[in-house]
């Protein structure tokens, strides 16, 4: 009797799974399906105005479209057919194309004005509204910080097809920034249909304007996007269905990829990377606009001697470290990563040079000399300090290598300590550390986005670096364009790399796996995925 009961129970539990499976198979078989693992446990929100994370951005970039669409650094017209600059670059007028929302209604310039003012409104409480400071749109920063009125913001829909923007200063990167997911438009009636952006992840309520529409969403499991027939460029969208899974364990997702359950993987297990690089042409590495570094707490007596800071900077072999890490990261000898083009069309990273910081161990001799001059021959007499990082296997590995190199190369000893992210952030902003890991990624195509964080008083100036000349140069760069802008930035990085309040370690990279059956997918310079032009050949 009991056995029968248990058996019945098992059958009962398993039955829905069996039927669910049967149901799925019937639906399968549309022409072109892409299976993609997002690499996170699911986006926090899909509402473009509220979203501040790249997983939501990757999905959003396929559901929505901004004024422009950027693919691999090239800006294509999106919702805007054309745009022109006037008033010395301080006014930008976008001409919108005939575009529709996925519900068939017309998309207007007013929709953009609504979306953006909503996004910057403190009442919306968007985590990303700080970005309005860097758009240089008149009154936007003030409005976002609750000090100005939305009325005074320089965004105006002149008519249904014309959107006019007033900027404080001419801003070279403005148009390409408009492709970023924070600037995607939302439809007012849809937004008001559900609170707190829930409309965006509800297939019933979601209205979008991009190549795909949301047709299914399961918390913690995945979502489904299907081709949007109302998209202006729908004829060129070749993928019919995108199944997105939310798996945040890289090894599980990788195994599923190897089994053919995925065509596209945004997250690859780090230990497999060196092999993938050699063996698998499906593995891609992209530079990311960011830098991994260590902060010195400049308020402490122990870091006052620049020779010590330079010695520690020279005392590590960045090439070996990036080789072990395997992700193709670029050893950093400056703060600005490759990928920014200056007014002369040259790469900022190349032009800036290495400030005498070799990428391998050849700087150790100089480092030892500097330490001796500073009164610590072979590291003797230098106090033992603590190097902090936030909890992660990757950060731990880098810290372990740095610790060992400082010990063997320079005779300087440190302890390692890790803290959970929220605790670590607290520790860093309060300056309650000796040396701590830092990392910075920028969201717009200008070195300003990186160098500005070391200005006095900046919330992200963790070393508490304080240099009036540096501050002046960054401020100057903020107000200028072209040659003046870049000269100020080069000069600023010169100061930063002479004073070295930080030890730059490497420039970030991004990686992914894509089956050869998926063609023509693309990615923005900032790392957002784009399947609007992709196709699948089975």
């Amino acid at each position, binding site marked *: 009797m009991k056995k029968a009961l248990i058996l019945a129970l098992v059958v009962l539990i398993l039955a829905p799974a069996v039927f669910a499976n049967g149901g799925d198979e019937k639906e399968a078989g549309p022409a072109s399906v892409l299976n993609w693992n997002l690499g996170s446990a699911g986006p926090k929100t899909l509402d473009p105005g509220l979203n501040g994370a790249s997983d939501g951005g990757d999905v959003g970039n396929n559901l929505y479209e901004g004024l422009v669409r950027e693919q691999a650094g090239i800006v294509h017209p999106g919702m805007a057919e054309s745009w022109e600059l006037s008033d010395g670059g301080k006014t930008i007028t976008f001409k919108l194309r005939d575009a529709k929302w996925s519900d068939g209604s017309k998309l207007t310039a007013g929709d953009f004005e609504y979306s953006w003012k909503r996004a910057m409104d403190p009442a919306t409480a968007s985590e990303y509204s700080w970005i309005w400071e860097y758009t240089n749109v008149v009154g936007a920063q003030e409005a976002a910080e609750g000090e100005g009125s939305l009325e005074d913001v320089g965004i105006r829909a002149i008519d249904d097809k014309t959107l006019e923007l007033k900027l404080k200063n001419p801003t070279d990167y403005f148009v390409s920034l408009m492709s970023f997911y924070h600037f995607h438009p939302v439809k007012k009636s849809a937004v008001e249909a559900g609170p707190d952006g829930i409309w965006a992840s509800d297939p019933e309520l979601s209205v979008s304007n991009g190549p795909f529409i949301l047709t299914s969403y399961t918390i913690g499991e995945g979502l489904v996007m299907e081709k949007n027939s109302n998209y202006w460029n729908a004829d060129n969208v070749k993928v019919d269905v995108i199944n997105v899974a939310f798996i945040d364990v*890289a*090894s599980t997702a*990788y195994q599923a990829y190897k089994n053919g359950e995925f065509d596209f993987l945004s997250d690859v*297990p*780090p*230990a*497999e990377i*060196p*092999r993938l*690089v*050699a*063996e698998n*042409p499906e593995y891609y590495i992209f530079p990311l606009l960011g830098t991994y570094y260590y902060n010195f707490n400049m308020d402490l007596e122990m870091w006052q001697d620049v020779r010590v800071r330079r010695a520690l900077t020279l005392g590590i*072999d960045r090439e*070996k*470290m990036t*080789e*072990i890490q*395997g992700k193709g990261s670029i050893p950093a000898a400056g703060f600005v990563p490759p990928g920014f083009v200056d007014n002369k069309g040259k790469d900022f990273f190349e032009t800036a040079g290495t400030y005498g910081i070799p990428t391998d161990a050849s700087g150790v001799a100089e480092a030892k000399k500097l330490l001796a001059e500073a009164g610590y021959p072979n590291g003797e007499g230098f106090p033992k300090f603590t190097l902090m990082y936030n*909890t992660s*296997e990757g950060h*731990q*590995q880098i*810290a*372990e*290598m740095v*610790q*060992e190199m400082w010990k063997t190369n320079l005779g300087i000893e440190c*302890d*390692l*300590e*890790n*803290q*959970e992210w929220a*605790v670590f952030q607290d520790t860093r902003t309060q300056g309650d550390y000796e040396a701590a890991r830092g990392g910075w990624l920028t969201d717009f195509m200008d070195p300003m986005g990186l160098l500005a964080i070391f200005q006095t008083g900046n919330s992200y100036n963790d070393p508490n670096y304080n240099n009036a000349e540096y501050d002046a140069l960054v401020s100057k760069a903020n107000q200028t364009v072209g040659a003046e802008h870049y000269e100020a930035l080069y000069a600023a990085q010169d100061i930063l790399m002479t004073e070295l309040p930080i030890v730059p370690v490497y420039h970030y990279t991004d990686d992914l796996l894509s089956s050869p059956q998926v063609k023509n997918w693309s990615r923005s310079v900032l790392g957002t995925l784009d399947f609007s032009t992709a196709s699948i050949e089975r």
Partner: protein
Amino acid sequence: MNVNASQFEFATKKESQDQEILRKSLTYWQDAWRRLKNHKLAMVGLIGVILILLFALAGPLFSRFSYSDQILDYSNVPPRMDIYEVADDYYVFITRDYKLLRISEKGEILARIFDSDKDAINKIYTYSDVDEGLDIALDFSYNLLPGKEADYDYTFAANGGPEISKPYKTVSNRTYPFGSDGVGRSILVRVMYGARISLTVAFVASIVNLLIGVVFGSIAAYEGGRTDIIMMRFVDILNSIPLIIYVILIMVLVGNRGLWTMIIALGSVYWVTMARLVRGQVLSLKEQEFVLAARALGVNRSHIISRHLIPNAIGPIIISMTMMIPSAVFTEAFISFIGLGVSAPMASWGTLANDALSGLMSYPYQLFSPSLAIAITMLSFNFLGDGLRDALDPRLRKG
């Protein structure tokens, strides 16, 4: 029958003593030890425990590496290597992340040979040993061919010579007997040092279980009524508060003071299962006749608990003490991952196993060594535990 006094005589003092001491009286613990000694498996377990302790304490003295010494060029080298003879008396090994190492015939790593050219499209890497004037071409395209036909994965060719596809032989890694990890540290040495942490944790966890769990549970059950309810609700609360919040709170309040803070964190929450088990046993035992008898004789409470109840509950106590050791070892790894306890590069067995997991597909041996260490320890403790249970159970006491 006629009996009179003349037929009897007084026994001498010696005679009467001889009668009394037929067998030396043994205390509870002496008797337990005697029985433990006769338990073969328990002895195997005891020897195992002693060997592990020796391994942890004395092992590092015989190694030239410390737990933190890195040789980045020798990272991810397995314990067994297929070496190829590419030139006379010149043996090489290719790691799974495509580093070429020169190996002696006996299995010592001599040097890394750096690559001079990487042809990723044709899958041919060239490595150059400038001193020996050797250019070694590695062709690993075979491994990747669809429907692979060759029975080898790759070939070597030195200075344009013939392709070598057969390994010369398989040697054991003399430099790193258990292999090396992702930054070129000896796994053997790290397992030895890790043993110190993990065994300390296992020891502390067992002591905490005994001192707090057993005492707490037996008092609650014996006292019963409101005392029992309140004591066990305290256990419920302790058990339900998320461990991770608790650990972060300790970290923020006291900071990380190494192993000790970790032990405090672990020890203060770890004994709840034991307390519940002992309570359950004592609840049932305390109604049995022998306890009633002891009570009727006026034996005091603590004596009843320590001499009558706990020894009779020794089975579940020892089982859960030994069975909970691995969970303590892995909880330690979790707590130190959050940031409390020993800091990197020092690592416990749990941490070593945890770190090895992400590379399981390519470097399974990195998981194997710490796991094996934990398994051997557990088997030893289990055998010893079984023996102890038999030895300490008063119902099995003879004489």
